[in-house]
């Protein structure tokens, strides 16, 4: 008996017994298989060459006849199954493991065929384990390709180049998502009951898809998957811990990428809490995004957290950033980001910090300016407690202007301690600058070459634009709108007036500059309430309970 016949006889036996585990064991696709697979491939090559004939298809149908009377608990081949088995035999006939492009193409085709077979509502489930194994093989292959850009370029170079073409990672994610959809649609168990049938693999396929989408930086394509889960997905708690943690990690990163930092925090917190403590690398990976999510929500990592083994080295990255935010020190902020630029950039954190932390730095700088003005005014003076607490925009123009000058490379005009002038700058020149420049009213002077050119993102307002009253007013208005400042703008007086100081026992700083985490949390709640009202009016999307995160299916209660 030929090897193909022996193989198909075995496969038929497993199909009749609905033995998914054995099907998976036999339907191997990787190159580290016993020689018999290669021998079978040779046999197919000689008996059924790739010549457009349907002989192989007919042969498979003959060996795998559909059963008419199938008893409960048993199975039968079906057309989609036979088609998949035919494709499987062709895979072995045509695959060339020395040519990674060939392997990728053949395996992708086989996966699509497998997904079609799995979709059968009666017997499809017997291919579930095979589907998982094949998907994992494809995922493994594609992920290894992402680490070989030259091979990737070879594959992707074949495309038409219309700019719309999908990367191979994205195409692989598309294929695996078909399995996800098929499993999600399984009706053998309800949403809140322990999963049965294909439903057991919902989060496994979701995680494989997410892994690929994040690898090709197309996480936005996961929206449909999360929407489908929210609509009909089974409760996450019914699945193994490893799948829960992986899913919540990706959902957290998805929300992080979409600037939903509170949601990102919720997902990553739960992923971290549920992760087995022995998986340090996983916990570290979760922390890599959980810490930034919290910083962006206005909470800094404690030394307790940073001293954990999985956080090794994080203190030197994140603490300088936090420290700069605390004092509104833009110079220290840029220095902190640039010191670990590569690390932050590779993880998609650099630009997020650069742009999203700016409001917090402005809050810090305005707060500091207010504190300094208060301390200066109160020196030797008393009895101004009746004066309404306010922040003069002119003062902010001065402090912001000072910081802007530092960013532009200005140096102190009168160093407090004697120090040699910077290289190439003569003391005569320095003196001349101080004496000659009309309206010289700063403790800083520019270097001879003039101010350093700043990129738009490097300046306080925009590149080298000098902060003025208008730009400061605009910044303050933004902070008030965002809830980071409590009070109102008195335009005539060019001031920000603090409101509610009495509530804090006359502590104007506490009243005017509420805690960031508290303020942003409040804003998060307000935007949820706005969404709720809009949904009530029939506008916008349906909004869940407060604190719910789309895609995260919690228990029915």
């Amino acid at each position, binding site marked *: 008996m030929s090897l193909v016949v022996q193989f198909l006889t075995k496969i038929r036996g497993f199909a009749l017994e609905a033995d998914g585990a054995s099907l998976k064991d036999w339907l191997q696709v990787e190159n580290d298989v016993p020689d018999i697979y290669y021998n079978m491939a040779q046999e197919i090559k000689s008996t059924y060459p790739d010549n457009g004939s349907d002989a192989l298809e007919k042969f498979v149908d003959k060996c795998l006849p559909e059963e008419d009377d199938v008893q409960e608990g048993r199975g039968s081949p079906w057309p989609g199954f036979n088609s998949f088995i035919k494709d499987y035999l062709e895979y072995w006939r045509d695959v060339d493991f020395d040519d990674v492009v060939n392997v990728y193409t053949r395996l992708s085709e086989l996966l699509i065929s497998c997904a079609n077979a799995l979709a059968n509502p009666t017997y499809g489930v017997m291919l579930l384990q095979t589907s998982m194994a094949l998907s994992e093989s494809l995922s493994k292959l594609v992920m290894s390709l992402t680490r070989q850009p030259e091979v990737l370029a070879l594959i992707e170079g074949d495309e038409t180049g219309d700019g719309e073409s999908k990367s191979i990672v994205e195409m692989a994610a598309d294929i695996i998502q078909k399995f996800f959809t098929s499993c999600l649609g399984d009706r053998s168990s309800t949403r809140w009951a322990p999963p049965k049938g294909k439903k057991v693999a919902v989060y496994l396929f979701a995680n494989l898809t997410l*892994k690929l989408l994040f690898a090709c930086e197309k996480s936005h394509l996961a929206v449909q998957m999360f929407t489908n889960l929210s609509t009909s997905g089974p409760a996450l708690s019914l699945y193994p*811990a*490893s*799948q829960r*943690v*992986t899913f919540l*990690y990706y959902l957290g990163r998805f929300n992080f990428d979409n600037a939903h930092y509170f949601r990102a925090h919720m997902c990553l917190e739960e992923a*971290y*809490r*549920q*992760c*087995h*403590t*022995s998986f340090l*690398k*996983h916990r*570290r*990976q979760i922390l890599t995004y959980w810490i930034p999510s919290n910083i962006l929500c206005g*909470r*800094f990592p*404690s030394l*307790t*957290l940073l001293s954990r083994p999985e956080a*090794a*080295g994080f203190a030197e990255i994140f*603490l300088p950033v936090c*420290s*700069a935010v*605390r*004092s509104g*020190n833009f*110079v*220290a902020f840029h*220095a902190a980001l640039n*010191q670990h630029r590569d690390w932050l950039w*590779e993880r998609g954190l650099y630009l997020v910090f650069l742009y999203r932390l700016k409001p917090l730095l402005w809050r810090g700088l305005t*707060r*500091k*300016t207010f*504190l*300094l*003005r208060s*301390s*200066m005014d109160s020196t030797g003076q008393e009895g101004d407690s009746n004066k309404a607490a306010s922040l003069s925009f002119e*003062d902010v123009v001065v*402090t912001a*202007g*000072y*910081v802007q000058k*530092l960013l532009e490379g*200005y140096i*102190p005009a009168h160093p407090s301690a004697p*120090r040699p002038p910077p290289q190439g700058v003569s003391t005569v020149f320095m003196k001349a600058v101080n004496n000659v420049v009309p309206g010289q009213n*700063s*403790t*800083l002077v520019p270097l001879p070459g003039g101010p350093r050119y700043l990129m738009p993102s490097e300046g306080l307002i925009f590149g080298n634009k000098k902060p003025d009253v208008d730009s400061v007013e605009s910044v303050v208005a933004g902070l008030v709108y965002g809830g980071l400042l409590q009070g109102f703008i008195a335009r005539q007086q060019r001031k920000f007036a603090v409101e509610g100081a009495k509530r804090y026992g006359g502590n104007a700083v506490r009243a005017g*500059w509420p*805690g960031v*985490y*508290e303020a942003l949390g409040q804003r998060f709640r307000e935007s949820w309430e706005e969404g709720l009202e809009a949904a009530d009016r029939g506008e916008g999307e349906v909004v869940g309970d407060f604190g719910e995160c789309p895609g995260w299916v919690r228990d029915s209660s």
Partner: protein
Amino acid sequence: MATSKAPSADPKSSSDLPAEQPQQPKQQTLEEDDEFEDFPVDGTPPSPHWQADDTEATQNQQPQHLWEESWDDDDTTDDFSNQLKEELKKVEASKTKR
């Protein structure tokens, strides 16, 4: 956190920052792969179905202090504050002169 000082904004010191700090070799931990690895499916424990007992969720009955919510910096005597104060004074003085 609460005791750490804001880094100096002095242009001299900030521009010298990389030189002042000895270039330490990057830690191994910062070089690792960025991928969220698959959890082991079988073989060595824990199984993919590990129990809550071995997680943060139940191990620490007392919530650990992981985050600093109150981090505002009221110090007006640090370097950066002193520089800003000097600048405010200087500008004020130049205005009164006019």
